[in-house]
């Protein structure tokens, strides 16, 4: 379990973090969200002992994190970089040895990972000859081949094509099942919706909120429903009870639509369905929960309003 307690950090007069605390449990994917310059990277660097906090502490399994704990951490920074003149396998062995593996173990692990990522045939190539996507894979492997129990990923999906995004997401999911603690910083809200269990939002050096993803989506829901139906919009309008208003409409094909409606007053979804059934052919209906992008924006707007 990773516990960050009351961390503060300033660079000269600039306050980068102010009394930020978070707790990430084992077997959990914890998302660290926030706009550019909010302090996420500073926090990640403090956890990695790259820079020292002015106050507060970072606990790993209940004990302050030290240099000796670094071999338990797998870190993929946002600013990716490799030695371009080194061969893939040599580079991975080098990174593995930096994290405490023997040369033999590093080579074995590298081989296994390269095969999993289907780039084993590139192992003798120099990094400079790899495509960007392949370099990203090498970088990801380098961060993970020592089998860390705390995985810190800063923008892990950037630079990957959709197929490889799924590959990385599957890997992160596998880490979760293995009971690793995963801290993930990203701007990609779709990935937050898809993979995070819990998030903390850092804004202007402070933590705005820390909660489960579904708790937050639930908190910001606005009694809205999405309906996919066959028919036409006039029929929908006729069927819509005055207790609901149409918010969004999307044409799926000639006579199929996806709409979002918002409830007014105390009307229930059952009443809505009853009212619509005679007018349109309902294919699907579900309560609409805002995605994390909307939650994120609303949280920041709330803060700015204050």
């Amino acid at each position, binding site marked *: 379990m990773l516990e960050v307690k009351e961390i503060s950090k300033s660079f000269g007069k600039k306050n980068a973090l102010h009394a930020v605390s978070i707790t990430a449990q084992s077997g959990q994917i914890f998302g660290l969200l926030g706009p*550019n310059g909010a302090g996420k990277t500073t926090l990640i*660097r403090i956890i*990695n*002992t*790259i*820079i020292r906090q002015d106050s507060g502490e970072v606990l790993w399994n209940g004990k302050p994190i030290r*240099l000796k704990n*670094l071999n338990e*951490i797998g*870190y993929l*920074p946002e*600013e*990716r*970089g*490799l*030695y*371009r*003149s*080194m061969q893939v396998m040599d580079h991975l062995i*080098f*990174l593995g040895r*930096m*994290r405490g593996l023997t040369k033999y173990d590093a080579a074995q692990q590298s081989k296994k990972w390269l095969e999993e990522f289907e780039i084993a045939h590139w192992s003798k190539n120099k990094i400079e000859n790899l495509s*960007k996507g392949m370099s990203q894979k090498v970088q990801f492997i*380098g*961060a993970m081949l020592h089998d860390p129990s705390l995985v810190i990923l800063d*923008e892990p999906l*950037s*630079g990957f094509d959709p197929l490889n995004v799924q590959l990385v997401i599957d890997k992160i999911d596998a880490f979760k099942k293995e009971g690793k603690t995963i801290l993930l910083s990203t*701007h*990609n809200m779709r990935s937050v919706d898809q993979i995070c269990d819990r998030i903390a939002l850092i804004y202007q050096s402070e933590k705005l909120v820390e909660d489960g993803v579904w708790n937050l989506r639930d908190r910001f829901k606005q009694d809205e429903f999405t309906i996919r139906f066959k028919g036409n919009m006039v029929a929908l309008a006729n069927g819509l009870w005055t207790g609901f208003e149409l918010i969004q409409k999307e044409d799926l094909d000639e006579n199929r639509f996806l709409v979002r409606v918002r409830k007014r007053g105390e009307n229930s979804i059952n009443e809505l369905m009853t009212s619509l059934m005679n007018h349109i052919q309902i294919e699907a209906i579900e309560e609409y929960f805002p995605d994390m992008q909307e939650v994120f924006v609303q949280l920041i707007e709330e803060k700015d309003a204050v």
Partner: protein
Amino acid sequence: MREFAERLRSTSFLWMLFIGPMVLLMLIFLLLRISDEGKKSVKAIVTDPAYFLVNRQMIKGESNISYDIRDVSFEHTEFLDNPNLASYDVWIEINRKVLTNKVVKVFYREEIGVEAKIAMQLEVERRLEEAFVEDKYLDVTLEEFRNIKQPLNFDYIDIQDPGKKTSRIEGFVGLGFGAVIVLFILLFGLAVVRSTAKDKSNRIVEIMLASTSSRALMLGKIIGIGFAALVQFLTWVILVGVGLYIMRETLYPDLLDPSNWAQSSEEVKVQLAQQLSNQTQNKLLDVLYNQIDYTIMLSNFVILFVLGYLFYGAFFSFIGAMSNSESDGQQFTLPLIGVLLFSLGVGYLTVLKPENEWVDIFAWVPFTSPVVQLVRIGQGYYEGHSSISYTISLLVLLVSTGVFLYLASKLYQANILNFGVRTKSFFTKKDKMHNAVIDLGTNTFNLAIGRWIDNSLSISYSTKEGVALGMDGINDGIITIEAIQRAISCLKRFKLLCDKHKVSRIHAIGTSAIRDARNSEEFCAEIFNQTGIKVEVIDGMREAELIFKGIACTYSFPKLSLIMDIGGGSTEFIQVEGGKSTKSMSLNIGVSRIFQKFQFSDPLNQEDIRKIEDFLEENCTDSFYSLNADVLVGASGSFETFYELVNRKKFPDGLKTQEVGLSLFLEELDNIIASTQAERDVNSFIIPIRKKMAPVAAVKTRWVIKKLGIKEIIISPCSLKEGLFSELR
């Protein structure tokens, strides 16, 4: 270890490993060939109080040596100072001790040539042999004596420095070793700078710091590269040593060593001596092969190199951590190179004036002590002085190295992750730095490079490229893959231009097409990944604010004015009263949006014009109709094109605004609206990206002029970019 291995594997290192010693040997050979051979014609006085040679005739061979044998003895000072002895070049001192120690001392005023030395040794030795036999010091025949004798040793001593306390040539040898130290510190120090800057620029440093401390990383780099330097030096020592040995055996045998003559007859000896004396044999050769104590020099070299390299390595590391690129690092190393060259200068002073008090001081200063101490060791300074001062000097160097490595590691830590932001520079002033501003518009990307000099904005370079970022996607709220590729390739070119103009910081601003696109985050992330440029996406109000600030740089708004900036995605309107912005708005009525929303005929027909005007009516909010102005100030872009079409000339260089008559302006707008694509294609005043959309921009401008009752037209070359520059003042 990685640094060490990488350096050993590098081709340049392997080349230098062998080319270096070869060049050094060639230089030594060249020096030996060109150096002065010394005096060949010699007048010698022989003092012989033991009467070995007195009354004997010296048999002169082919040599130009004349002897004057006296049965007296005198002190060194007398030979030096007595005017009666001033005509003698050499004083040969023979006394009774020669029977036991076999040493003949030869004092010279000026270095003598080896031919003369050989002749002198042969002649004096021959006469002494005769004397020993004939005077019955030994009970053997002359021939028997010559067979059993031990050769005499001739000790050549400079009368100016009989104690051999100081020698310039030995000092220069020490300086030579010092120069090698400076060379190695410089070469491998620069390697530290390059390697650190490279780690920083390719961002791997963050991964390294997540595995080890910044101090260990810094020391690892210095030590790894230092080991490579030592390997190179030791290889040089071995190769140069072998080379010198081969030269000794083949080109320069030791002619003065009598044992080399032992198996030869008298005639052969003379012949040999004369033959070989034609070759260059000189003091340098003597120093090289006889005077340098290589054990002492090399061991001290290694100690002083290690300490000196670590000491300077601290500074080189810090410079590497401060630099954002290798070229940055080269700039910052100049002062350090100056200090290293200064230490060589002090080394030279030590050769010339070893007792100078400044030399004593510089022997302690860690910046200069490695070179000064090596010169002193070469001079044999510590044979006549206490070596405690050397020990203390080493301690000072050691402690300073520790202190500076510690300080450097602190600064290293503070700077190594400071990507793109340099430590507050000691060398540059903020107002002297070039900034670049890139406006990532919907149709065109604009780059301006400039700086503020004495409160005046100086744009040193500007360019624009049609990127059509909003093409095919603006009305669907996306930036297409093709548009992303065009943007990246344009920004890569802009980045190269920024590097060429030594831009310290790039400010990239994304406007309408980017802010409205659903994939704007991915777009910005991809740009950052591929170009390192961070795009700040601003909202419409901020865009309007920057446009106002940009035009206000060179226009004071004397009348009630309305700024209009026609973009591809949006159009900004800012009402200015009394020089202050009173109302501003950003409307999504950009020309690219309109152009892609409808199908137009070529040229536009009345139906097309009506569609555009209806679209403007629908999308302009009530607050637009509340705008009130007499003067329309057109901001750059399309307005510059309108100016050029009205006046049939390029828009003037600089940032000054230009006035255009309203009727002429409206007439030209009508012309543009009525023009065909083919006509616009051949019109050089319309840049390619505007050739398609110019009529739409013209319809819109005409509509605004008519709706708001505009009376005057002013066109400013300034806009958003200049607005951002105004904030960087």
